[in-house]
């Protein structure tokens, strides 16, 4: 894993974020019903970035995004997930701006424009955020109820299948990480053709290891677009960034910080220009 792990004290360094390497400014979107926004912001800070709150109804979405280097759509139950997870949030004014900055819906080429970069704005959707990205057609497929129909919260091992995205470059390909999984509608589905394309083009970013927790097709836990700037995953890396508050790990109970790599990856991507 990343070097940060060993440098962090075993437990209890609460306040100090990593050094602000880059001045990377990363937006964290809040919808009514979003739950993990503060957690995502904390993860950004611990990774050395600056977290900027984004309100879903922001009227000047494009302007707000233009000063940002990346955006995270965090987990939760936007609009209660009442219709379908992410279905109503997808229509928030800010989402239109995010969709176009990221390269446009259904456009895996990532041709979005933002300050001086060829690639689209890096966007990460976690859990409900992933669901919103699929509802927005920024990522293919969709999520249905977990196979056993129950909410499931557990520590989950994932394999990083694609370490060439803006959000995974600090991992090694095939690296196994442990982060919490917690959701009700986490079963990833897509038609066979789409699944084959995802596999063929290496767009599966994360895969469940050690048992499929929710019935997801081909054990898929997270995917990326072809440009590698838009990534969505069901498990929660932002809950595995601080020793003492994460999943159990080889180092000890609740000491897992494997999720931090997602956030240091994007900070590094920003520092080093588009990947």
């Amino acid at each position, binding site marked *: 894993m990343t070097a940060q792990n060993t440098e962090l004290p075993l437990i*209890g360094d*609460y306040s100090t974020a990593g050094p602000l390497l880059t001045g990377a400014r990363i937006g964290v979107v809040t919808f*009514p019903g979003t739950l993990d926004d*503060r957690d995502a912001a*904390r993860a950004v800070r611990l990774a050395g970035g600056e977290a900027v709150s984004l309100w879903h109804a922001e009227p000047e979405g494009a302007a707000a995004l233009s000063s940002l280097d990346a955006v995270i759509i965090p987990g939760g*139950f936007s609009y209660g997930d009442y219709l379908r997870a992410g279905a109503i949030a997808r229509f928030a004014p800010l989402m239109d701006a995010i969709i176009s900055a990221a390269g446009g819906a259904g456009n895996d080429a990532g041709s979005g424009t933002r300050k001086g970069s060829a690639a689209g704005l890096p966007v990460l959707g976690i859990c409900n955020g992933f669901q919103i990205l699929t509802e927005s057609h920024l990522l293919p497929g969709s999520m249905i109820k977990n196979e056993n129909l129950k909410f499931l919260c557990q520590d989950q091992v994932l394999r990083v299948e694609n370490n060439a995205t803006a959000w995974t470059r600090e991992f090694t390909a095939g690296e196994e990480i442990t982060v919490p999984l*917690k959701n009700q509608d986490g079963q990833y589905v897509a038609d066979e053709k789409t699944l084959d394309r995802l596999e063929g083009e290496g767009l599966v970013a994360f895969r469940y290891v050690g048992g499929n927790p929710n019935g997801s097709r081909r054990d898929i836990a997270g995917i990326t677009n072809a440009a590698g700037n838009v990534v969505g995953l069901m498990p929660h890396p932002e809950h595995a960034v601080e020793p003492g*508050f994460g999943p159990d790990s080889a*180092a000890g109970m*609740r000491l897992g910080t494997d999720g931090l790599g997602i956030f240091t990856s994007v900070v590094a991507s920003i520092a080093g220009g588009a990947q």
Partner: protein
Amino acid sequence: MTTGTQNTSSADARQFNIDTVEHAATTPDTELPWAELGLKQNEFDEVVKILGRRPTAAELAMYSVMWSEHCSYKSTKVHLRQFGDKLTEDMKKDLMVGIGENAGVTNLGDGWAVTFKIESHNSPSFVEPYQGAATGIGGIVRDIISMGARPVAVMDPLRFGAIDHEDSQRVVHGVVAGIGGYGNSLGLPNIGGETVFDPIYQGNPLVNALAVGVLRHEDLRLANASGVGNKIVLFGARTGGDGIGGASVLASESFDDTKPSKRPAVQVGDPFAEKVLIECCLELFKSSLVEGIQDLGAAGISCATSELASNGEGGMQVELTDVLLRDPTLTPGEILMSESQERMMAVVNPENVEAFEAVMATWGVEYSWLGEVTDTNRLIITWDGETIVDVDPKTVAHDGPVYDRPYHRPAGQDALEADRFRDSAAGADLPASGEALRASVLELMASPNMCDKSWITSQYDRYVGGNTALAAPDDAGVIRVDEETGLGVAVATDANGRYAFLDPYAGAQLALAESYRNVATSGAIPMAVSDCLNYGSPEDPEVMWQLAEGIRGLSDACLELGIPVTGGNVSLYNQTGANPIHPTPVVATLGKFDDVGRRTPSGFHAEADGQAVYLMGV
């Protein structure tokens, strides 16, 4: 009328035959359904005496709900006093708000305070397990918000009937899914609870819910309406017929027309609405936009108006047609009694009205201005301008009946205590061989009460918020309060109904001892107690004895350990026919960490390999 959205009720305001105060004064002989509403003859007579006339339909609705056991604690008040009496100065030193408010508040230092409370939602959870349990979480969380706090965690001590009983599947899975469905959607980590199966709870499962909140000292809010001219506002969900199914006699306010009306038998929770309400309230607190605030739970607007008014200095004037309705056919009495979820009432300085409305707009929360604080010392409620309630609010909220119910030690108690194990355990020899020992251990570990509870806890989010330092399967849940310093709290809930059945006094003490130990084991210093007293009918002198002994035991034990009870809840009538549940005083202890980094997880981990294991105590 100013409302957040268009309201249509005013236009139809006159569809009822309104029972005004004036009308009541001139029709003293009208038959009133006070018995159907749960009042006793002596209680009704008392209402008439207080008012000097018969109550109007709306007043009757208010008195009957506010004087119910649930709201007035009429059977337990005389005993619960011990929690206040057995307090030393030392026990009070960190107590910022004690018993009597929505939830107690304890000082944590550094300008931080913590509030926590445990409450029951037992019988609704038996009728409709998912929604009953869900709205139980919703209710306790609103209690915490109304103190000015941000809720940060929940817990759920549960008691079910036999695991293999045909009805248990419905109840158990419904309750667990409901607690998860609501709590997870609010973004509140579930940091612990209990799950006990015992046939004694078959028809009376216990669903207790605890919430913890944290606040800065300056954000503390109390439920009182002060400052003449301040505005009263109701916000959150619309008012429907929820929870008044049993009081449908009020469907026709004038009692001369018996049109049947459909009222929901159960309440359905809307966790999304509550999540938005939480954020909205926190923004109000941060900008100091409310003077006083009260959640709407049991007894709805009756409770909120009478408590706000009686805790304040003056009186209150409210126009009931301004209440936003989900069901336009509700009568004034029904509106006053409705238990619709996800609503709050606040007192707002006129200067802040605009800013208040801006916060509501941001979060898309509906609201309506209902009236204002007055200097009349009366709670006056009008319907389209006509007075339908004119009472001294204290008589509704605080001066309810108080009963010192008779109680005695059950005739069979001696025999019960003298009894010994029979059945299998008495006949069984101590395991003689390794094999037998192994079998015994496996049998114990496989019992539903001892086995791994992750089939429940995996349905609860314990990570959300990023501040959970300990949760299941640890002895106590631990939450970080201050990310800068690591200041935090630990909470554990415990009870043992079988101990309390054998000895109600010692059983309550053991419940405290266990939760106190669990908190101490995590590394925290115990500071405060909240309790949920689950018992049978107080009208049964033997149950009343269990209850009196339980309260005496718990209050003595708190004094002994030097830890105050800061709030709690009493749930009575948990019985099927003449068979009460075992007395089940669920005790929650809260402790403090200067730095949650020093918390001790339970369980051995590979890193402890080679370290010594000690057994401490007697």
